[in-house]
């Protein structure tokens, strides 16, 4: 490898001086446009360091001449977004939840907002499609333990289920019939047979006929004489095809032996009443929502006394 610089005749350009098998490399200078672009990037970089926060120091980075920062920009965006949403949020806040459906615009906004809140707070248990899983109710269906109208949903979300720290929580206790020795193991099996008969999974048998009596004595108080459930106690309907934990023999045996006591957090205090209202609207919109029952006469009188002036012109 000879190191001999020379001028290449045809091109008039100096070679770099290396030679491999008779092939030489021309020392062609960088194109001017390339150099100028390069210098421009340097100037740009310096400008960038001056204008934006860039150099780290002990107490933080340099501020940049305009004091811009991505955190600041984010805060501004969030504030603007908050201001944009404020009117509709406050309208939702002052509207009683059962009146939302009458105002499609508010209802729509509530459902959207509820969907967003749901993705943050509820999907962990109820799943992203709100279809639940074993032990966590499917919110798309029309089977409600405690009721599926807007007002009830709002109450459930606010106070939770069997929440130990919440005085007004939804509460119900099913005895652990086997564990506590109320029923013997064969009796539990008979009850299971009966439940599977009324839910259409098994045919009548001697066992189920024995179970019928046991059911009437022990279970009908909460689940109703026909096993159709009672919402006051959050007692599930045992005659439909929907099971929170499962309708097979094994699961039912476990349920009756040990009872089930699912807990849902009370969201009061964690989420604003408006967010809870929006969550209820979203859950209601999933297809199983029920119409709000007409209020009892006494309640109507109260509501009219309190909210009539505000509500009347709006309708």
């Amino acid at each position, binding site marked *: 490898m000879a190191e001999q610089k020379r001028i290449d005749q045809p*091109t*008039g350009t100096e070679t770099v001086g290396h030679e491999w098998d008779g092939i030489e490399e021309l020392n062609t*200078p960088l194109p001017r446009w390339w150099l100028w672009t390069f210098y421009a990037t340097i100037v740009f970089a310096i400008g960038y360091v001056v204008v934006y926060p860039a150099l780290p120091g002990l107490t933080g980075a340099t501020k940049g001449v305009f004091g811009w920062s991505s955190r600041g920009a984010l805060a501004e965006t969030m504030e603007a977004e908050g201001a944009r949403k404020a009117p509709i949020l406050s309208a939702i806040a002052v509207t009683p939840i059962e009146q939302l459906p009458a105002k499609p615009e508010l209802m729509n906004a509530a459902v959207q907002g509820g969907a967003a809140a749901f993705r943050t707070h509820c999907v962990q248990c109820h799943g992203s499609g709100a*279809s639940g899983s074993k032990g966590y109710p499917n919110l*798309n269906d*029309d089977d409600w333990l405690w009721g599926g109208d807007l007002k009830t949903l709002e109450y459930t979300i606010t106070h939770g289920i069997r929440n130990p720290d919440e005085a007004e929580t939804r509460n119900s206790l099913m005895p652990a019939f086997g564990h506590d020795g109320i029923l013997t193991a064969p009796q539990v099996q008979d009850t299971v047979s009966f439940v599977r008969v009324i839910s259409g999974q098994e045919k009548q048998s001697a066992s189920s006929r024995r179970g019928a009596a046991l059911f009437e004595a022990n279970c009908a108080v909460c689940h109703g004489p026909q096993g159709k459930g009672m919402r006051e106690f959050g007692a599930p309907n045992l005659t439909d095809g929907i099971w929170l934990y499962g309708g097979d023999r094994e699961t039912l045996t476990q349920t009756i032996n040990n009872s089930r006591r699912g807990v849902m957090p009370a969201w009061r205090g964690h989420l604003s009443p408006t967010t809870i209202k929006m969550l209820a609207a979203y859950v209601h919109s999933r*297809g199983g929502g*029920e119409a709000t029952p007409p209020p009892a006469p006494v309640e109507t009188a109260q509501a009219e006394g309190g909210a009539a002036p505000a509500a009347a012109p709006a309708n």
Partner: protein
Amino acid sequence: MNSMNDITDSPLGVYQKRKAVFPKQVDGPFRRFKWLVMAVTLTIYWVTPWIRWDRGPHAPDQAVLIDLANRRFFMFSIEIWPHEFYYVAGLLIMAGVGLFLVTSAVGRAWCGYACPQTVWTDLFQHVERFLDGDRNAQIRLDRAPWTASKVWKRMRKWAVWLLISFATGGAWIFYFADAPTLQHAFWTGQAPFVAYGTTFVLTMTTFILGGFMREQVCIYMCPWPRIQAAMTDEKSLIVTYKHWRGEPRSHGKKRAASDEAHFGDCIDCLQCVQVCPTGIDIREGPQIGCITCALCIDACDKVMDQIDRPRGLIDYATELDCEREMRGEAPVPAIRRLLRPRTLVYFGLWCAIGVAMLFALGTRARIDIAANADRNPEYVRLSDGSIRNAWLIKLRNMENRPREMTIALEGLPGARMWKESDTRESAARSITVEVPADQVLKEHIYVVAPAAGSAREDFAFTVQAGGDGGEKARDAESFVRPEESE
């Protein structure tokens, strides 16, 4: 730094340095045709956005409008929705086939007359001639030192160019918004930033491409010449120098001193070269730089008139004709040269696409339904054992008035449906909604059907506008049930 120039100037240089082109003024039938095309195309470009077209209260009254925000394309009485983009695709294909047709018939005529680059370059050159004088004056001015007078002349030329460029770039944005409104907003500083940005970019590209790059665009930057060159064959009419008639060329004393008969008709006056907007010498044979503008024909015909020789030393001719002429046979009539299988096939194709699109436009429905099944969850078992699926249904009302539409179930016996905003109590076989003018209405719909049935049962959503006899559309879907094993 100097060695850069050494390379480009050296005999082995890779790059040819640009030679400035100062095309000379010329007159003749082709030049006049070029004027006409220029006038027509520029008028179309500048006037179109200002044509009004009354579409009633719910739609814009601009005849040609690309409404990006609402994703509509309006063209007189035709309105194209994004899902009908195939009409635009069809137009583009027609433009392509049309280009094939023109090219296979008469060479790069698109380049020579109608291409925006050509039109604006031509316009700029007229400005240049008007301000600085014709070719020779321009060359003199170009070589002259930078005196005050030259600076003034350059400034005034660039100013006029910039003005034209601004009018060009500015006109573009009017295709995308209501022209009078945008015009007002533009001058009062209230137009959206994108309007100013677009105007600026197009002004600068017009200024640079039309004023400075000119033939460089046609020769080096544009991909069309390569494609178009492949489209021409020995039967295409292209601008040709008839060398068997012109050669050997000579001029001046040499020609006068000897026997005229030794020489061809070309007197080497270089008129054809001087008028050429791409600065080439057509006498060197067909070449990629030629945009078939035929200005050299105009120039040479004049010369032939002066020296009393027949016109057409440079002429529109096919290669086959040239061969015939060289053998002394009569040329084929122009009409026979144009009507040949290849052009006829292109023409037939072009017409077929056009007719098909017209037919489709005439019979297209102005109503549409598109259903999108929920997949999370796919189905829900309800407490009475029935199964529920959900769909997001989009109803398109493509007319300029609000219309009532009825969605109904076709098939799926026993099924009923209700809107998300209602509850199951209102479930029915059909739902009637009002869809606003020119809009898409989205409805989340729940469909409940008995549990008995196949895991995937085919059915369809139908939609009908107004009462009986209204427009109809349907969308085939399947209803999903849990598999037996569950």
